């Protein structure tokens, strides 16, 4: 029995071999993932390490590729909506909105006023739940086990509220072409109204336990500095860009729906490091609460679905359109081309996580492994969205 196999020859697959070609003498090639506690799903990162230092890193994608764009070609527009909830399971509402919005734009469908408000409320709630989950999971990356439990405690209340109209807790397919599936009933509205002060009362605790903690501050300050220039080059958006001081938010810069009616701030940070992104996300929770509050105030009565909303067999009129919304991770764009046939001719999904992750190779160069993990977490990736 040969115990000491020649690992140089047999270990690794195509990616590792290819990656190793450029390796320096005496370095260690390490596969983080596809199953690794800090990659949140099935992301794989091949890193070349010199001791604890990361010399190069290369994310490898595709372990969760589900051909969403291809599936759009074999389904009618209305039938494709459930897919959108599965692209990014943490901010499903935004993807719902992006696709539905694109189709409505081609067909020129006007959404009832109340439906617009319902969309804003659910989308912002979903954004909060996404940020809360990110917060907990990020701290798990940094080795703190307890915060995620507290975050889930809050998130649970939120999911309960969203479950009332949508019937599900994660992969919502709630939006419809021309509105939403169901109105928010009193039960749901009551839960949301109770949730806003509750979360506000919890935020100081988050600050005490985590944000002010010296260990955490030392862990995330000054690591993973992303220059605005780099963001622009890779097309990073969302909290990653705003954490680098780029004041860009689709809700403000290219308002869609009724976002122009609300008074809210776009939090940005000049720190450019993981800390900046952390701060931006925490501030965004508060801003989302503000939007929801205003939306609840202003919400009119009425229908939530246009009369004669399209049936599944409805053919999208020929044309093309692009619709972008601000997701929890950045700019979600859906580009739809229709040739007037039964199914959409082509659907292109622009996932913010993909661009944000692309930064990683450049940013992680020369960092310590623990920092690389912290940077990876601060980019807030959802792998299914990146792979689509």
């Amino acid at each position, binding site marked *: 029995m040969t115990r000491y196999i020649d690992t140089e020859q047999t270990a690794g697959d195509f990616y590792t071999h290819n990656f190793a070609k450029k390796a320096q003498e005496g370095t260690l090639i390490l596969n983080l993932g596809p199953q690794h506690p800090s990659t949140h799903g099935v992301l794989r990162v091949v890193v070349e390490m010199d001791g604890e230092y990361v010399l190069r890193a290369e994310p490898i994608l595709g372990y969760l590729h589900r051909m969403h764009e291809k599936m759009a070609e074999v389904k009618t527009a209305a*039938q494709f909506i459930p897919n959108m909830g599965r692209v990014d399971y943490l901010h499903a509402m935004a993807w719902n909105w992006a696709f539905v919005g694109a189709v409505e734009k081609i067909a020129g469908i006007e959404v009832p006023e109340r439906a617009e408000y319902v969309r804003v409320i659910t989308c912002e709630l979903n954004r909060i739940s996404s940020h809360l989950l990110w917060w907990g999971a990020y701290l798990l990356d940094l080795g703190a086990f307890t915060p995620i439990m507290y975050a889930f405690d809050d998130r649970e209340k939120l999911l309960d509220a969203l479950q009332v109209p949508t019937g599900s807790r994660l992969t919502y*397919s709630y939006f*419809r072409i021309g509105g939403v599936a169901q109105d928010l009933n009193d*039960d749901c509205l009551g839960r949301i109204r109770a949730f806003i002060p509750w979360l506000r009362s919890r935020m100081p605790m988050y600050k*005490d336990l985590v944000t002010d903690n010296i260990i955490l501050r030392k862990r995330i300050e000054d690591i993973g500095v992303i220059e605005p220039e780099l963001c622009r080059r890779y097309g990073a958006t969302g909290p990653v860009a705003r954490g680098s001081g780029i004041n860009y938010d689709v809700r403000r810069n290219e308002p869609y729906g009724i976002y122009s009616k609300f008074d809210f701030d776009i939090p940005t940070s000049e720190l450019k490091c993981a800390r900046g992104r952390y701060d931006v996300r925490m501030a965004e929770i508060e801003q989302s609460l503000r939007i929801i509050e205003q939306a609840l105030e202003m919400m009119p009565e009425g229908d939530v679905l246009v009369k004669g909303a399209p*049936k599944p*067999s409805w053919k999208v009129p020929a044309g093309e359109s692009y619709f972008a919304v601000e997701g929890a991770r950045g700019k979600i764009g859906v580009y739809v081309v229709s040739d007037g046939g039964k199914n959409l001719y082509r659907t292109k999904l622009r996932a913010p996580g993909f661009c944000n992750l692309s930064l990683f190779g450049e940013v992680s160069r020369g960092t310590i492994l623990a920092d690389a993990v912290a940077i990876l977490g601060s980019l807030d990736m959802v792998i299914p969205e990146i792979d689509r």
Partner: protein
Amino acid sequence: MIKEAMKTVSDLWSLMVGLKVTGRYFLEPQVTVRYPWKAVDNIDTFKGHLELVPSKDPFKPKCISCGMCALACPSNCLTVVKRKPPKPTPEEEKAQAEAKANGEKVKDKTPKDPEKFIYDYTLCSLCGTCMENCPAGALRFSGNVYQAGYSRNDFLFELVAHMQTKADASPKTEFEPPVAETSEA
């Protein structure tokens, strides 16, 4: 120098603050519910698998076998099997042939309700498209969160039979949790 020292002290103090938070929560009551022993309050709004809505007769679905739902479903999990027309008696056959010859419309005696309504829960994405497109309002979500099984086949429903067995059993006891107590706040 003094500033530095103050900063170090406040940094160390932040560690104490963290301990204070966890210490407080350590003493506070738990927020989890001991689930199988206590009921939870958020499962009523869950969708659960599909079921057929019975008409006035609890053993007969409202469904008119139009097949819209099966057409609308993005995941192809529904199959509606229409009933065969009943075998006509010789007299009827004759009458029908006569009517046809006279150019009259033949009255279809076929009962509208489906013979079988096969539903594959493993494929269903709970989107609700089928429900929204049903002209008769014959589908709804059961809200059953306790659907679990040992094999794939446990998730293959024959909804007509499912509805009838459900009608047989008293509807109250069907989907209650094992021990139904009110949940603690």
